[in-house]
């Protein structure tokens, strides 16, 4: 029973992905000018961003709880979830650049959402640099936790709120929010999209779990 709880989510994630991958290629998709078949990238590029936000969200939860009641375990959790979130973020930007090259004509444009997402990833990169600059353990954990909260709020603002204020090439900004425009097939894309988000979040948790265990073992070794 305990084994199912421990590993069940991993099996679920794999099974969902094995369903998502064929459906992503052969499923019915909304037909759009400019995008043509590349709209299938929705199942990869956008899913990466959703997973990233959730990973950073879990990380900030542990940071906030660490500020309320300090514990080394919470700090490790915050760090490793931020690591996984960073990985998803880089994947999101790279997939976005590839997608943009073929649909918009250039891998990068002077677009608010692009600049905002690059800036927030840089803010998180600075988080890791900050962690490496503080020597005292207690100070480091506390400073990192404070910065993590700051970075997450900046992420939400730069990627979520600012693009809505200004014009943007991205769908759903400077226009109506969400993928409403692509849903003229009454949900045939949502059936693949939503499980994919769940699967990638679970995969992210799995990777974070492995990293946390590695880190805990490393720290235990150092304390000997």
């Amino acid at each position, binding site marked *: 029973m305990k084994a199912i709880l421990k590993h069940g989510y991993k099996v679920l994630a794999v099974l969902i992905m094995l369903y998502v991958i064929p459906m992503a290629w052969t499923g019915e998709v909304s037909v759009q000018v400019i995008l043509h078949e590349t709209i299938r990238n929705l199942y990869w590029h956008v899913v990466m961003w959703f997973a990233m936000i959730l990973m950073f969200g879990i990380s900030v939860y542990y940071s906030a709880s660490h*500020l309320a009641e300090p514990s080394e375990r919470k700090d490790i959790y915050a760090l490793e979830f931020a690591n996984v979130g960073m990985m998803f973020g880089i994947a999101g930007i790279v997939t976005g650049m590839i997608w943009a090259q073929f649909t918009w004509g250039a891998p990068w444009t002077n677009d608010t959402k692009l*600049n*905002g997402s690059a*800036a*927030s990833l*840089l*803010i998180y*990169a*600075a988080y890791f*640099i*900050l962690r490496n*600059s*503080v*020597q005292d353990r*207690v*100070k480091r954990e*506390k*400073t990192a*936790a*404070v*910065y993590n*909260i*700051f970075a997450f*709020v*900046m992420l939400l*603002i*730069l990627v979520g709120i*600012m693009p809505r*204020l*200004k014009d943007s090439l991205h769908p759903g900004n400077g226009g109506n929010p969400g993928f409403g425009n692509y849903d003229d097939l009454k949900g045939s894309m949502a059936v693949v999209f939503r499980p994919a988000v769940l699967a990638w979040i679970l995969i992210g948790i799995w990777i974070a779990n492995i990293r946390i265990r590695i880190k805990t073992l490393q720290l235990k070794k150092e304390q000997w």
Partner: protein
Amino acid sequence: MIQRIYILLQKDLRLEFRSKTGLSSLLMYALGSVFIIYMSVGEPEQGFIWNALFWITLLYSCVNSVMRAFYYETSSLRLYYYQIAHPQEVIFAKQLYGYVLNTILLAVSFGAFALVLGNFVQNMPLFVLVSLLSTWGIGAMLTLISAISSQTNNAAGILPVLAFPVLLPLFLSAIKAASAAIDGEAFAQQWANIAVLGLFNILAWLFSYLLFPYLWRS
């Protein structure tokens, strides 16, 4: 509470104006840049060049000015502050100090630029609003970041690393709005950029209010 903020602010300003380094070095930097630009480029022909040069000079002056906000405080001094004032009061005083410094820098830089390199600004009220909001935003955000970086062992090195990503969107909005002011666009078209700049200010204050107490305790 306001009295304490005012007293702390006065202390910082008095220290600033008393020392020979500090404000004068920043002014020298700003004026020196103007001079070098004048020597090499002369009066720029187009507004956007003027804009770019202006923002480069302003950026470096403001960043340098706020960088030293927490730098010179030793830990024993901090313990003294800890006993006499709330952490929010300390950070607010520091931010207001940053505001004052940056406004002086802005006025001097703009004056120098306008005198020596020509005044390209067509929509003056918009330009004033944009540059004030952005220099204040830089000041407020940088005060918080310098508070965070003062915890590390290499504060001067880590500060630009932390500050650059955060200030990037602020600069984008500021430069766009300023170039619109130079071209003489109306207020209404730039409301999004102005809203962003205002947002940065508000955010910096909010973050300082909520997060600084945790930093202060160590």
